[in-house]
C-alpha cells in the first residue's frame, strides 16, 4: 500500500555531492558549480579557521571562561558552504551553533563568545551584519525568518532569507508553521536544515521515519538533500535555492546531511548514548580533509599554503582568547537597560531602588554575620 500513497523510497542517489570524501570532484546536472581557485582556497581557509575557533572556544569553556559552548565540529562545510552562498544583503537566522555562518557574515568571534560567557545575549548588531541573534528556543527563528522574507517581498527586495535549524527542530510546531506560511505567501526563504543526526541524545529516527528533506514536499515546495560535509555541494545547492527564492518561486528546503562530531554542548556526555564507532566512521568523511585532498591532488595548494593557514589559525585563536579574557564584565545596573524602547516607570523605579541598595550595601559576612 505504501508506494501508492506517496511514501516512496529514496535512494543514495538523492544526496547531492560535488566532492567525495576522497576529494574527487563530481558534477551534478542540477547543481553546476563555477568556482575559482582562489575561492576554493578561501573555502579551505574558512573551514580551517572556524574549526580552530571552535577548538579554542571549547578550551575556553573547559578553563571556566565560558559557561557553555556548542561546538560546530563536523558541520563546518554545511555552514561555510551555505554561508558563502549568501549575498551581503541576504538575511540569515541562526540557531546557537552557526559559528561558521557567523564567520561568513563578518561577526567578530568574541561577539559570539559573549553569549556563551554570559555577558550579554550576543554582541552583534543583527542589522549591520544581516545576521539575527542566536535563537535558543528550538525552531522559533524559522518563523521570524519567514516573516522577514515576507517583508523583503513587500519591499520589492532582490534578496532572500536563510533560516537554519536542526533535525530535532524539524519536530517543533513552529518549524512546520514556518513551512506553511512560507508556502502560503511564497516567501523568499531558504530553510537550511543541518541534519547532524542527533538532537542531544535523540537520534534522527525519532523525529522522522523518512529523510527530512522530503518534509517540504508535503507542504508544496522543493526539498533536497545535500552532503553536508561537502562544502562545494552546500555552496552550489544553497546558491541555487537562494536564486529560486529570489526569482519569486518561494521557499526551498535544504537538508544538509552531516554529523555532530562533538558533544551536543560542553555540558553533554555523548558516550551515554552513542557508539564511538559511529564517530570513527564519520571522521572518514571529515569536511575539511576532503577539501585539502582536492586542493593537493589538483596542485591548488602546497605545504606553504597549509602552513600559512595554520599560522593564521594559531594567531586567530590567540586573538580570540585574548578578546575573551579581556571582555569587560557587565555592571549590575545594566540589568535594567533596554527592557523597553519607550522606557517603563517600574523598571526605572527598580533601578533607582537597587542603585540605592547597592550604595548602602554591606555584605552579610563583612559585619560579622551582621
Amino acid at each position, binding site marked *: 500500500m505504501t508506494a501508492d500513497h506517496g511514501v516512496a523510497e529514496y535512494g543514495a542517489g538523492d544526496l547531492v555531492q560535488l566532492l567525495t570524501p576522497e576529494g574527487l570532484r563530481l558534477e551534478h546536472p542540477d547543481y553546476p558549480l563555477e568556482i575559482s581557485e582562489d575561492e576554493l582556497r578561501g573555502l579551505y581557509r574558512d573551514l580551517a579557521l572556524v574549526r580552530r575557533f571552535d577548538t579554542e572556544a571549547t578550551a575556553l569553556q573547559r578553563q571556566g571562561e565560558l559557561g557553555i559552548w556548542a561546538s560546530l565540529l563536523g558541520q563546518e562545510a554545511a555552514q561555510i558552504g551555505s554561508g558563502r552562498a549568501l549575498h551581503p544583503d541576504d538575511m540569515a537566522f541562526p540557531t546557537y551553533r552557526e559559528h561558521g555562518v557567523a564567520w561568513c557574515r563578518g561577526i567578530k568571534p568574541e561577539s559570539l563568545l559573549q553569549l556563551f560567557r554570559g555577558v550579554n545575549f550576543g554582541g552583534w548588531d543583527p542589522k549591520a551584519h544581516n545576521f539575527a541573534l542566536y535563537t535558543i528556543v528550538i525552531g522559533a527563528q524559522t518563523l521570524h525568518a519567514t516573516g522577514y522574507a515576507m517583508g523583503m517581498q513587500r519591499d520589492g527586495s532582490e534578496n532572500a532569507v536563510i533560516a537554519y535549524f536542526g533535525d530535532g527542530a524539524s519536530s517543533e510546531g513552529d518549524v512546520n508553521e514556518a513551512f506553511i506560511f512560507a508556502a502560503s505567501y511564497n516567501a523568499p526563504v531558504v530553510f537550511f536544515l543541518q541534519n547532524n543526526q542527533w538532537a542531544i541524545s535523540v537520534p534522527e529516527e525519532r523525529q522522522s521515519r523518512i529523510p527530512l528533506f522530503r518534509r517540504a514536499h508535503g507542504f508544496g515546495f522543493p526539498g533536497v538533500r545535500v552532503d553536508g560535509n561537502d562544502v562545494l555541494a552546500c555552496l552550489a545547492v544553497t546558491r541555487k535555492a537562494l536564486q529560486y527564492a529570489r526569482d519569486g518561486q518561494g521557499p526551498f528546503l535544504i537538508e544538509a546531511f552531516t554529523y555532530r562530531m562533538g558533544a551536543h554542548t560542553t555540558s553533554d556526555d555523548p558516550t551515554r548514548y552513542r557508539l564511538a564507532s559511529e564517530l570513527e566512521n564519520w571522521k572518514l568523511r571529515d569536511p575539511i580533509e576532503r577539501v585539502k585532498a582536492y586542493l593537493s591532488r589538483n596542485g591548488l595548494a602546497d605545504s606553504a599554503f597549509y602552513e600559512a593557514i595554520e599560522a593564521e589559525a594559531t594567531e586567530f585563536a590567540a586573538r580570540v582568547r585574548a578578546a575573551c579574557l579581556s571582555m569587560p564584565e557587565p555592571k549590575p545596573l545594566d540589568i535594567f537597560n533596554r527592557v523597553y524602547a519607550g522606557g517603563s*516607570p517600574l523598571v526605572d523605579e527598580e533601578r533607582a531602588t537597587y542603585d540605592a541598595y547597592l550604595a548602602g550595601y554591606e555584605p552579610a559576612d563583612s559585619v560579622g554575620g551582621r
Partner: protein
Amino acid sequence: MAPVAIARALNMGLRKALEQDPKVIIMGEDVGKLGGVFRVTDGLQKDFGDDRVMDTPLAESGIIGTAIGLAMRGYRPICEIQFDGFVFPAYDQIVSQLAKLHYRSQGLVKMPVVVRIPFGGGIGAVEHHSESPEALFAHVAGLKVVACSNAADAYTMIQQAVTSDDPVIFFEPKRRYWEKAELDVDAPLTDAVPLHAARVVRPGRHLTLLAYGPMVKTCLDAAKVAADEGHEIEVVDVRSLSPIDWPTVTESVRHTGRCVVVHEAQTFLGMGSELAARITERCFYEMQAPILRVGGFATPYPPSRLEESFLPDLDRVLDAVDRCLSY
C-alpha cells in the same frame, strides 16, 4: 459626530494607523474580507489591499512569529487574535521572543507589534471564547499590556499602541464592543492621555474602585447605586496593566483609604493581587480596610448559562464595597 461603538472606534483608529504609516500592516485570521468576527477590521482590506490587511493561515504561533520577522524588517504589524482563548498557541513566541528581543539585542532590534485580543465573557459564547488572560501577559517583562473600556479610549489607545516601539498586548472588552460614546477624531493624538496612564473616571472620597476593560462600566454603575446610599465612590480606570500607573492609583487610594479591585479574570493571582499587594505596601498607614478583590472564581470559565454567576456584577461589586466600608 454621532456616538460610535467601541468596535467601530477601533476600526477608525486602525484605519488612521494604516493611513499614517505605510509600514503598518494588519494580520490575522479572517481580518480580510470578513473584517474579523467582530468586524473590527471591516472594510480595511478593501481600502488598503490584501498586502496591508492579510488573512493568515490558521496558526497563532505563525501569526506572531512572522509578525516578529516583519517587525525586524521594519514593519509595524497589528495582529488580531480571534478570541482570548486562542492566544495560547502563540504564547511562546509572545513571551520568549516578542517580549525579549529588544532586551536581548541590547536595544538594537525594536518590536513594534500590537497583539489585539478581544477578551472577557458575558456574550453567551462556548468555551475558550470568554477568557481573561491579561495577568498571564502582565507578569512577563518586556511586554506592555493595556485594556480599553470605552470608545473614545479605544480610538486613541489603539493608535498609541501602534506608534509604540514596544510590543503591546491590547485587550478589547468584547462584550462592550457595541457600546457607544462620543469621540473627537480631530483631537491630535499628542493631546491624548498617555497610553500607560490610569484615569479617574468618577471622583469620590469614601472608597476607590479599580477596574479596567469591561468592568469599568460595571464599577461606574455600582458607584451610581452606592451614591444613593451616600457613599462617594471613586472609580479609576486602570487602563494600563503593565506598566501600571502607580502614582494615579495610589493617590486615589491614599485619599479614600479603601479600595476594591474588580476584574473578570480569576481572582487568584489576577491583576488584583498585584494592585492590592503594592498599594497596601505603599499606603500601609492610610489603609482603613484591607483591599478586597472581586473577580472570577478559582474555576475554569463555566458554561455560558452560568457565566452571570461567575462574572462580577453590580451586586457582587456593591457587596464588596459594603464589606470594605464596614471595616
